[in-house]
């Protein structure tokens, strides 16, 4: 409880209250003035009578406040390498500290690589999505984002780099590899592989959202990584070192600023770095001042002439003194004959003096003609002296920085020594920290696999639920017993989805058998599967081919339903089977294929899946037979999908003729994604309506 002497708490306002008061300049905890302004702009749009859609369009525009960028990445990366990391003030990139151990460096590098792959994907795909949504080209989208302050990607070239990094990371994730093993073919052009994944799963908003959410969760967990229990001496040394390094950096900034102000010109990066390196490497104040003079005094026009003045003046004065000493005394008797040698010597000295004096006068003439430059020269020469550096302001500053650098080096030694010989507590806690980092990075590395799996699973569940709702609706509207039996079998046969518990039980044997039946027998096989589901009563025959009274064929037996002579059906049964085929064949086949795909790819997410027991799969020939048997359905399904069409077009443009398996996978995958609730259960790119996949019976 605050007592009477404690400072009164600052009043707290919600952002709304602040906005209502019209003040966006105040600082609220965790909210920047720019964010408040963004909120105000969004609210104004509504007040101006704009529609919700227009408002959302504005809200969807990334700005500096909303883009996933360097700041988030740096915050994440700084947490790794047991915290032995720092942001390089020049590049703004996070690096492992020089004194980090190899294990710490390795942990940091691994985290950095994984995080930057996720980031590359998020940044590139966000631009692609915006460009597709608005119809504005990628370069123009980038330009408009940069103008809004989102500088996560600043150029088309950077976009290309991030796109390649992001898509390659997605392609190399374990789940995508198992989903599309054919993409591992080394003869396939990498760009084709990228286009394939980009056009199928890569552009899925659900995937991007899931990756971003997961990354944020992992970032939050990185904040809570266990601390290394450093001993007090090490902690103090690191603290002092940090502050000394800050002081060094501030000193560099101050000197650079002073030079820039004096010369009225910014230093180029190499010049800045040279000063920074000189200070960082422990150069003496005199050495650094010589460097600084090159950037100041020596840049003044006529520096070469001005710099001679002092020396020339000295030499002129000396020559004058010499001549003065050796000249013929004026008091000498006029009739006395002067010693010729003495006269010559005096004349020579005078001549020397005269030459220097003329030179000096010429120089002073230059000075008088260029007085502002000369004044600047004199000023700089005084402020950036090489001799007597300690007496100048900058010399004193450099001396201080020199001492600071000496201390940094001492601290380096203390820290290195302490880190090489940690106490048990510290060693154990550092190991624990690195292990926790490794576990977390495992998750970051799995972010693509996990997210893709999660998205497909969700889509599958939504389709299953939609199927179920459709069946319930049909039941209300009245359906035949055959319709009911077929609907029931589609729900139970392959993957049984329990809406209440949201569990999925899978029967891989039945899926495999039924896939083989339709692959080998085509439409006839499909009809026979429907016959099985309808459980029509076909009398058993004795050895002579006569019906056995009261005995019926067991249509659950694969041998029976695959081989029974359909001519044994009565006319009424034949009609019922034909009706069922016309009504349900496409839906039934697509549900089977969807469950095949789901159980093959979602594996352990499905109840009933036993690791290693999964023998699901068709050979290349079996996929080809499936295509031959259902060529029309495959072609029309793919033709109705813009996305599928694009993937196929890209394939052909890359000179690759997709085989049957790939065509079917595109067909099924896009059906699941397109039909999913990126909002489009029942619609979407291929769409349930187009393919029949997932359409309620």
């Amino acid at each position, binding site marked *: 409880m605050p007592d009477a002497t404690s400072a009164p708490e600052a009043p707290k306002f*919600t*952002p*709304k209250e602040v*906005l209502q008061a019209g003040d966006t300049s105040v600082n609220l905890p965790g*909210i920047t003035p720019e*964010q408040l302004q*963004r*909120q105000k702009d*969004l*609210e104004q749009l*509504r007040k101006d009578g704009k*529609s*919700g*859609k227009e*408002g*959302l*369009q504005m*809200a*969807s*525009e*990334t*700005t500096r*406040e*909303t883009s*996933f960028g360097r700041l988030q990445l740096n915050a994440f990366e700084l947490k790794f390498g047991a915290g032995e990391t720092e942001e390089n003030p020049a590049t703004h990139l996070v690096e492992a500290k020089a004194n980090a151990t190899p294990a710490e460096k390795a942990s940091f590098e691994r985290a950095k690589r994984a995080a930057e792959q996720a980031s590359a994907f998020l940044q590139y795909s*966000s631009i692609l*999505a*915006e460009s597709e*949504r608005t119809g504005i080209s990628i370069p123009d989208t980038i330009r408009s984002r940069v103008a809004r302050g989102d500088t996560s990607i600043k150029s088309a070239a950077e976009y290309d780099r991030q796109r390649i990094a992001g898509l390659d990371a997605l392609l190399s994730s374990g789940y995508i590899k198992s989903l599309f093993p054919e993409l591992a073919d080394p003869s396939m052009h990498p760009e084709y592989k990228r286009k394939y994944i980009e056009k199928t799963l890569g552009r899925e*908003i*659900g995937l991007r*959202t899931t990756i*971003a*959410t997961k990354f944020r969760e992992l970032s939050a967990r990185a904040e809570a990584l266990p601390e290394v229990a450093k001993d007090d001496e090490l902690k103090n040394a690191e603290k002092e070192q940090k502050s000394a390094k800050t002081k060094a950096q501030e000193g560099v900034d101050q000197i650079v600023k002073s030079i820039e102000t004096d010369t009225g010109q910014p230093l180029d990066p190499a010049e800045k770095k040279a000063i920074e390196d000189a200070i960082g490497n422990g150069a003496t104040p005199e050495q650094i001042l010589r460097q600084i003079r090159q950037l100041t005094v020596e840049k003044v026009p006529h520096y070469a002439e001005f710099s001679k003045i002092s020396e020339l003046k000295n030499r002129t004065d000396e020559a004058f003194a010499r001549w003065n000493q050796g000249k013929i005394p004026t008091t000498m008797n006029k009739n006395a004959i002067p010693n010729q040698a003495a006269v010559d010597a005096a004349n020579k000295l005078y001549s020397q003096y005269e030459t220097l004096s003329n030179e000096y006068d010429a120089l002073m003439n230059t000075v008088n003609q260029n007085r502002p430059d000369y004044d600047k020269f004199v000023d700089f020469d005084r402020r950036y002296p090489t001799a007597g550096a300690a007496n100048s302001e900058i010399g004193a500053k450099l001396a201080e920085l020199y001492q600071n650098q000496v201390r940094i080096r001492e601290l380096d030694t203390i820290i290195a020594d302490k880190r090489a010989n940690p106490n048990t507590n510290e060693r154990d806690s550092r190991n624990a920290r690195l292990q926790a980092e490794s576990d977390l990075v495992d998750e970051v590395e799995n972010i693509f696999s996990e997210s893709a799996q999660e998205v497909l699973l*969700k889509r599958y569940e*939504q389709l299953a*639920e*939609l199927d179920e*709702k*459709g069946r319930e*609706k049909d039941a*209300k509207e009245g359906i035949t017993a055959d319709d009911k039996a077929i609907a029931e079998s589609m729900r139970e046969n392959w993957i049984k989805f329990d809406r209440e518990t949201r569990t999925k039980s899978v029967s891989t044997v039945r899926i495999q058998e039924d896939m083989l039946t339709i692959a080998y027998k085509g439409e006839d096989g499909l009809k026979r599967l429907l016959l099985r589901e309808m459980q029509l009563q076909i009398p058993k025959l004795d050895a002579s081919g006569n019906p056995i009274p009261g005995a019926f064929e067991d249509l659950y037996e694969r041998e029976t339903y695959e081989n029974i002579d359909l001519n044994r059906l009565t006319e009424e049964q034949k009609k019922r089977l034909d009706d069922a085929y016309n009504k349900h064949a496409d839906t039934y086949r697509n549900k089977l294929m969807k469950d095949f795909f789901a159980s093959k790819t979602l594996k352990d997410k499905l109840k009933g899946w036993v690791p290693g027991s999964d023998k699901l799969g068709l050979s290349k020939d079996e996929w080809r037979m499936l295509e031959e048997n259902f060529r029309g359905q495959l072609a029309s399904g793919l033709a109705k999908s813009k996305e599928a069409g694009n993937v196929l077009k890209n394939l052909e443009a890359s000179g690759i003729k997709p085989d049957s398996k790939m065509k079917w996978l595109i067909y099924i995958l896009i059906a699941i994604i397109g039909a999913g*609730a*990126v*909002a*489009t*259960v*029942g*619609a*979407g790119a291929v769409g349930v*309506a187009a393919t029949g996949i997932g359409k*309620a019976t």
Partner: protein
Amino acid sequence: MDNTSVSEEQKNNLYNELYDALLTGLQTSTLSHEDSQFSAEFILESLDKIDSEDSMLFFLQDLANRWPVYKDTYLKYKDNDTQKQEASTLDATREKLNSI
């Protein structure tokens, strides 16, 4: 709700409601600016493609699971759906009773 198609007017109403929910989220600090951008993108990429009331409900459910500020909108539509289903069941029962 069912598989009946969704009109443009219904979609526009939903856009308005979701935008208001987004603004409320920002005003009450229950939605970060980063999430407001992301969710707006999610809505725009999804809602136009919706063609049935069922899919609309799935979309809202997904949206609310990702960003709880949209939960009220989802619940409202879900309630409407339940009421509609109950009314339909009642009608069917009444029809059956009348036919007896």
